[in-house]
C-alpha cells in the first residue's frame, strides 16, 4: 500500500476500532473484554520491542506492569493524585526501574539475561506479598474511579473506560510504529541480527539495549496504570506467570515485528478465555500449548502460516494454468 493511502486506511481502522464494542453488540461483557484486550495489548507491546526488535527475552515485564499498577494505587489512594498525575508517576517509576535493570543486565546476554529478569520477577512477587507498606498479601484496595475533574470526565465502569483504553492503545501503536522507524529501532534490530556490523557502524550495543529498555518499560507500566483503575484494587497476583505467558504468546503467536500482531494475539487469547473458557486449568493448558506449538512448529507465527499457504496455493494455481494448455495441446495431437 502506498503511503498516501496508508493514513486514511489507518484512520478508518481506528474509527472502526473505537466502535468495535458497539459493532459486537455493546453488552457490558463485550466492553469488559475489549477494555482488557486493549490493556493487555499495551502491556504486550512493551515486551514486543524487547523480544522482536532487540531479540532478548525479558521475563521481568510483569514487574513493570505491576509497578505501574502499584504506583497508581499508592498515589491515588494515599496522595489523591488524579489519573494524569498517577500516569506521570508510573512513567517515572518505570524509567527508574528499567534504568536500574538495564544497568545490572548490561553485560548479560541470552539465557543469563532471561534468568536474571526471571529472578527479578520472582523476587518482586515475594516482596509484593510480604511488604506491608504496599498491602502485603491483601494488596491495596479502594482505588478511586478514573476521574479528570477539569475535563469533566469520570469513568465508573468499563463502558466509560473504553475511550481511555482505546486512546492508550492507539498511542502505543503510534509509538511502536515510530520506534521501528526511528534510529533507535533500526539500531536495535541491527544489534539483534548482526552485533558486529552494528559495532562497526558506530552503534553501541549496550547503550542501545538500555535505551530500548527505557522505551519499553513505560509502555508496559502504562498498561498497569489503567489496569489498576479497571480493577479498583491491586495485589501480588499481578506478578503471576499468567501475565508473562500472555505477553509472550501475544508477541509470537501472530508473527514477530507485525504492528498489529500483539493486539490480534491478545484478542484471540482473551476471546477464548472470556467467551469459550474451559475453566482455569484447561485454559492454562491451551495458552501454554499455543505458545509451545507456534514456537516449535510455526517460526513465522500464524501470519507466516497464512502466507505460506497462500504462496502454495498461488504456485498450484500457476502450475495448473501453465500445464492445462499443454495437456490440451497434447490431446489435440493425439
Amino acid at each position: 500500500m502506498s503511503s498516501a493511502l496508508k493514513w486514511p486506511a489507518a484512520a478508518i481502522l481506528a474509527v472502526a476500532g473505537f466502535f468495535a464494542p458497539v459493532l459486537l453488540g455493546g453488552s457490558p461483557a463485550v466492553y469488559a473484554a475489549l477494555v482488557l484486550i486493549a490493556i493487555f495489548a499495551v502491556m504486550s507491546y512493551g515486551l514486543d520491542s524487547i523480544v522482536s526488535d532487540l531479540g532478548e527475552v525479558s521475563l521481568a515485564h510483569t514487574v513493570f506492569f505491576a509497578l505501574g499498577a502499584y504506583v497508581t494505587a499508592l498515589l491515588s489512594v494515599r496522595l489523591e493524585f488524579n489519573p494524569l498525575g498517577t500516569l506521570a508517576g508510573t512513567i517515572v517509576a518505570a524509567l527508574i526501574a528499567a534504568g536500574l535493570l538495564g544497568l545490572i543486565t548490561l553485560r548479560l546476554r541470552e539465557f543469563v539475561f532471561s534468568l536474571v529478569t526471571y529472578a527479578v520477577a520472582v523476587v518482586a512477587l515475594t516482596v509484593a506479598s510480604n511488604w506491608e507498606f504496599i498491602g502485603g498479601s491483601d494488596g491495596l484496595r479502594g482505588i478511586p474511579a478514573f476521574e479528570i475533574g477539569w475535563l469533566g470526565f469520570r469513568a465508573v465502569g468499563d463502558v466509560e473506560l473504553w475511550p481511555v483504553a482505546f486512546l492508550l492503545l492507539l498511542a502505543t501503536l503510534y509509538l511502536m510504529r515510530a520506534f521501528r522507524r526511528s534510529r533507535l529501532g533500526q539500531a536495535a534490530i541491527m544489534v539483534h541480527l548482526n552485533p558486529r556490523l552494528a559495532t562497526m557502524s558506530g552503534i553501541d550495543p549496550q547503550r542501545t539495549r538500555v535505551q530500548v529498555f527505557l522505551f519499553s518499560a513505560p509502555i508496559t507500566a502504562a498498561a498497569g496504570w489503567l489496569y489498576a483503575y479497571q480493577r479498583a484494587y491491586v495485589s501480588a497476583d499481578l506478578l503471576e506467570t499468567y501475565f508473562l505467558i500472555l505477553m509472550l504468546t501475544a508477541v509470537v503467536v501472530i508473527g514477530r515485528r507485525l504492528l498489529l500482531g500483539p493486539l490480534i494475539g491478545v484478542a484471540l487469547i482473551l476471546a477464548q478465555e472470556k467467551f469459550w473458557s474451559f475453566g482455569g486449568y484447561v485454559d492454562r493448558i491451551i495458552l501454554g500449548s499455543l505458545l509451545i506449538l507456534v514456537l516449535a512448529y510455526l517460526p513465522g507465527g500464524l501470519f507466516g502460516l497464512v502466507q505460506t499457504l497462500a504462496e502454495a496455493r498461488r504456485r498450484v494455481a500457476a502450475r495448473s494454468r501453465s500445464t492445462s494448455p499443454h495437456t490440451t495441446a497434447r490431446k489435440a495431437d493425439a
Partner: protein
Amino acid sequence: MNLTQQLINGLVLGHAYALIAIGWTVLLGVARLVNFGHGQMYMLGAFMTWYLVSRLGLPYLVAIPVAMLAGVAVGYVMQRVMLRLTLAQDLVSIMIVTLGFGYVLHGAAGLVFGSTGQILETPLSTRDIYWGDLWFTWQDIAIVLVAIAFFAVLKYVIENTGVGRTARMVAEDPALSLLAGIDVKKVYLAVFAFEGAAVALAAALVAPRTPILTSMGFDEVIITFVVVVLGGIGSVTGSYVAGIVLGLFTAFFGALVSPAYATAAAFGVLIAVLVLRPGGLAVAPGGR
C-alpha cells in the same frame, strides 16, 4: 539461635539445592540448553511421588523410580517437540517454549491433583533424630547422602566415560559431532530425559521437607538459577559447592534476618556476583 542447628539446617538445605539443580547443571554444562520449566517438573515429581505413596499405597522406594520414569517421559516429550529449535541453537525460542511447558504442567497438575496443598510423608521423614539439643530427620540424612553420591557418579561419568565424552563433544560443537558420526538428536533427547529423571529424584527426596503445592515451581526454579550461575554455569563441582554455600546462606539469613526474604536475599547475592563476575564464581567458567 542455636548455631550448630542452623549449620545442620544449612548443610541439609544446601545438599537439597544442589540436588535440585543437578539436571540444569547437566543441561547447561553438557548440552548448552536451558529449561525454564524446571520448577514445574520438580512440582510434578513431588506430586507423582505423593500420589503413588499416599493414594496408591506404593512403598516410597518403588514410588521414586516411577516418578523418575514420569520425569523421563516429560523431558523426552519436551525435547522431542523443540528438537528443531535445539538443532538450530535458537536459545531465545527454547527459553520461551520451556516456560510454556512449565505453564502447561502447572495447569495439568492443577487439573489432576487439585489446588490444595499436600504433605508428602515418607518412612524417613517421620523418623526424627535427636542428638543433644539438635534435631533432624532420616530424610535429611538421605538427601545429603544421595546428593553426594549423585554428584560423585555424575562427575565420574562426565569426565571418564564414553557417554560423558560424547555429550561434552555435542555441547562443544554440534556440527562437528554430527560429522564424527554422533547422533546429535539422540544425545539432546537423552540429556533432557536425564534432566527429567534427576529433578524427579530431587523432588521425591526434598519435597517431604515442606508442604507441596501445584503452584510451587515458580519459587523452586530461582534457587536452581542461583546455584547454577554461582557455580560457574555448567560446572558440576561448582554447582555442588554453590548449592551448599547457598543453603548455609539461606539458613543463617532466615534465622538472623527474615525467612520470608531469604529467596530475595539469595537473588541479591546472585546480582552482586553477576555484576562483578558475569561468568560466575568458578575460576574457569564452563570448566569442570
